[in-house]
C-alpha cells in the first residue's frame, strides 16, 4: 500500500466517524457530574488512532474495522448510560408493580425488553424532551456506514430506541430529573397505543387543526399519567418547577389540565385524596391544591377555548387509560379493590414510609430493603417541599434556609450519593438486608 493511501484511509475513516458523531448530535453520557462528556467521542477517536497504529489487510477492511469499532462503541455506550438507564429500568421494574398491582408487571417486562433508552445532555437551550426522530436518523446513518442491512450491529439497534434529552444546565439537579418519567411516558404511550375512540370536536373549530392539537395534548397527558404511575408524586412536583407558564400551547396542554390529571392519578395510587391522606402527606395535598389554584386563575392562552371544550373529554380518556392499563393483560383485576390492594402491598408501605421520613444516604443501610431510585427521588422532593422537613434538613446540616441554592445543592449531592450507593450495591451484588 503506498504511504499516502494510509493517509487517505485515515481521512475517510475520520470523515465517517465525524458523520456518526454528528448523527449523535450532542449525545453525552449522563453520569453523575457530566464529566464523561467526551466519552463517546474519545471512543471514536481511539478507533481512528488504532487504525493509525495497525493497518489491517486492505483499505476497505481497515475502514470497515474503524467504522465497526465505532458502531460497537456506540452500542457499548448505551450500556454506559448507567445512571439514567437504571433510573428508567428500575422505575419500570420496581415502581410499576407496586403502583399498579400485577397486570403491569407483564407489560413492564415487555417494555424493558424491547426498549432501550438513551439519555443525553443537551447543551442548547432546551427542556427535558423525547426525541422521536433520533433513532431513525441513527439507524439510517449506521446502515450507510456499514453498507449492510443484515449487519449484527444494525440488528442490535432496537426497533424502539427512545432518546431522551436533559438540559445540560440541569445536569446535576437530580430532583428535576423526575421529569424524565414524563418523557419515558411518551415512549410507553408509543409502545402501548390504546384503542381509545376519537375525541368529539367543538363546532367552530377546523377539524384537522383541532384533531391534531387534541391528539398532541392527549399524548402529553397520557405521558403524564404514565409518569405518576412510574414514580409517584415526583414527576408532578418537578413539572410544577419546570412549567411556570400556564398557557396551553400547540404541543402541551395548560398546567391546570396536567396538574388535575396527575392529581387524579395520585389519588388512584393512594398518595392523595380519598378524604384521608396520611397525616404526613398533607404538605403534598396543600402543594398540589395551591398549584392548581394558581394555574386556574392564570390568563387563558390562545387555545383555551379548545381546552375548555376538551377538558372533560380528555380527563375521561385518561381515566379510561388508567382503567385500560389495569384491565390489560390476562390477570383478573378487581376495580373496587384497587386502592386498598395497592396500599396493602408491603413494598408500597415501605415506599410511603420512606417518603414520609425522607431517606438520606446515611440511613440507607438502616432499612430492611434496598431503596429504589423512585423512593430516593420522592424522599428528596418530600424533603424539599415539606416545610417542616426542609427546616429539619437545614438544621441538621447547619444550612441557612435563606441561602436556598446551597441547601438545594447539598440535597442534590446527597441524593446523587444515595443513588450511587444503590447502584453500586446492585452492581456489586450485595445481597439485600
Amino acid at each position, binding site marked *: 500500500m503506498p504511504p499516502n493511501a494510509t493517509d487517505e484511509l485515515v481521512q475517510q475513516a475520520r470523515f465517517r466517524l465525524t458523520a456518526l458523531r454528528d448523527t449523535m448530535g450532542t449525545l453525552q453520557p449522563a453520569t453523575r*457530574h457530566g464529566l464523561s462528556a467526551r466519552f463517546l467521542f474519545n471512543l471514536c477517536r481511539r478507533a481512528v488512532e488504532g487504525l493509525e497504529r495497525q493497518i489491517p489487510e486492505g483499505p476497505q477492511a481497515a475502514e470497515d474495522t474503524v467504522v465497526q469499532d465505532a458502531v460497537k462503541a456506540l452500542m457499548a455506550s448505551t450500556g454506559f448510560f448507567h445512571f439514567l438507564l437504571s433510573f428508567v429500568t428500575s422505575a419500570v421494574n420496581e415502581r410499576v408493580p407496586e403502583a399498579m398491582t400485577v397486570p403491569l408487571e407483564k407489560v413492564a417486562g415487555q417494555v424493558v425488553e424491547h426498549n432501550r433508552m438513551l439519555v443525553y445532555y443537551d447543551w442548547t437551550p432546551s427542556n427535558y424532551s423525547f426525541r422521536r426522530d433520533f433513532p431513525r436518523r441513527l439507524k439510517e446513518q449506521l446502515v450507510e456506514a456499514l453498507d449492510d442491512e443484515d449487519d449484527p450491529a444494525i440488528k442490535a439497534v432496537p426497533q424502539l430506541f427512545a432518546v431522551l434529552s436533559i438540559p445540560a444546565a440541569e445536569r446535576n439537579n437530580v430532583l428535576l430529573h423526575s421529569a424524565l418519567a414524563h418523557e419515558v411516558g411518551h415512549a410507553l404511550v408509543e409502545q402501548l397505543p390504546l384503542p381509545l375512540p376519537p375525541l368529539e370536536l367543538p363546532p367552530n373549530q377546523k377539524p384537522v387543526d383541532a384533531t391534531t392539537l387534541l391528539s398532541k395534548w392527549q399524548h402529553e397527558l397520557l405521558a403524564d399519567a404514565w409518569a405518576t404511575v412510574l414514580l409517584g408524586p415526583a414527576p408532578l412536583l418537578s413539572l410544577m418547577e419546570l412549567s411556570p407558564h400556564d398557557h396551553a400551547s400547540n404541543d402541551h396542554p395548560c398546567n391546570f389540565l396536567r396538574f388535575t390529571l396527575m392529581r387524579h392519578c395520585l389519588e388512584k395510587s393512594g398518595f392523595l385524596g380519598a378524604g384521608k391522606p396520611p397525616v404526613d402527606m398533607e404538605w403534598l395535598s396543600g402543594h398540589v391544591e395551591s398549584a392548581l389554584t394558581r394555574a386556574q386563575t392564570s390568563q387563558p392562552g390562545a387555545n383555551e377555548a379548545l381546552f375548555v371544550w376538551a377538558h372533560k373529554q380528555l380527563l375521561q380518556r385518561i381515566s379510561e387509560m388508567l382503567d385500560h392499563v389495569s384491565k390489560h393483560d390476562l390477570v383478573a383485576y378487581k376495580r373496587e379493590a384497587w386502592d386498598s390492594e395497592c396500599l396493602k402491598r408491603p413494598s408500597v408501605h415501605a415506599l410511603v414510609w420512606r417518603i414520609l421520613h425522607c431517606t438520606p444516604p446515611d440511613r440507607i443501610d438502616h432499612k430492611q430493603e434496598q431503596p429504589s431510585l423512585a423512593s430516593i427521588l420522592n424522599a428528596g422532593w418530600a424533603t424539599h417541599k415539606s416545610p417542616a422537613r426542609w427546616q429539619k434538613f437545614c438544621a*441538621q446540616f447547619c444550612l441557612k434556609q435563606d441561602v436556598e441554592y446551597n441547601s438545594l445543592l447539598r440535597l442534590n449531592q446527597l441524593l446523587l450519593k444515595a443513588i450511587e450507593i444503590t447502584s453500586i450495591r446492585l452492581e456489586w451484588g450485595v445481597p439485600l438486608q
Partner: protein
Amino acid sequence: MILSASQIRCRLSMEFPRKLVITPLLDEPRQLSPGAAAVDLRLGQEMMAAKPAMLTYLGPLENQDELLRGYLHRSYLPLGAEFILHPRQFALAATLEYIRLPQGLAGHVVGRSRWARVGLIIAMATFVHPGYCGCLTLELQNLGDVPMRLSPGFTIAQLILEEVGFSNESDPDQLTCAVGPEFRELMSIAECKKLLELGEKRRLRTGDDWGQPAQ
C-alpha cells in the same frame, strides 16, 4: 480507646443519634474482619488530579473556584475504570463510603501497609472529628518510581475509630456531607490579610523585604 471490629459492628447497628454510619460496606466480612481494629475503606469514584502547569502558585488569598478550575481536574470514574497515578503526582479522591461519626467518636484515616509499601500515600491530614458526615477526602500521592494503577473500589485506606469525651455541640465544618473530594478554604482570608499587613508594616519600618513573595 480504639474500637475493635466487634465494637465497630455494634456501633453500626445502634439507633440514631448514636449510630455510626459507614455505607456501603460492599464486603463487610473482609472490610471489617474479626480481630481487626479498623474498617477498610474503598477508593471512591471521583478524582481530582492536579495540573501544576496551570497555576503559578497557591495561597489562601486565591479564588477557590479558580483554583478548582485551573489547578485540579475533576473526573468521575465508574467501578472498574482505571486511574493512573504517576510518580510524585498528587491527586484528591474520596472514600466510596459515606461516613457519619456520632458525637463521642473520632477517627483517623490511614493508609494500608500493603499499599504504603509500593509507595502510595493516601492521606496527610488524617484526623476525623466527631460528628463528621460525608465521604472522606483522600490526598493521594505516588512516592514510588513507577506509575500506579488505581481503580474505584480498591481498598486503599482504613479508618481507626476511638472514643472521645462526649459533647452535644456540633461543629458546622464537620457537617459538610461531602460526596466527593472537596477543596476547602486554606485559612480565614481576614486572618491571612492581617498577617500580610503585619509583614508590610515591618518592611516599611525596617526596609527588610524578607518574606515578601517574589514578583
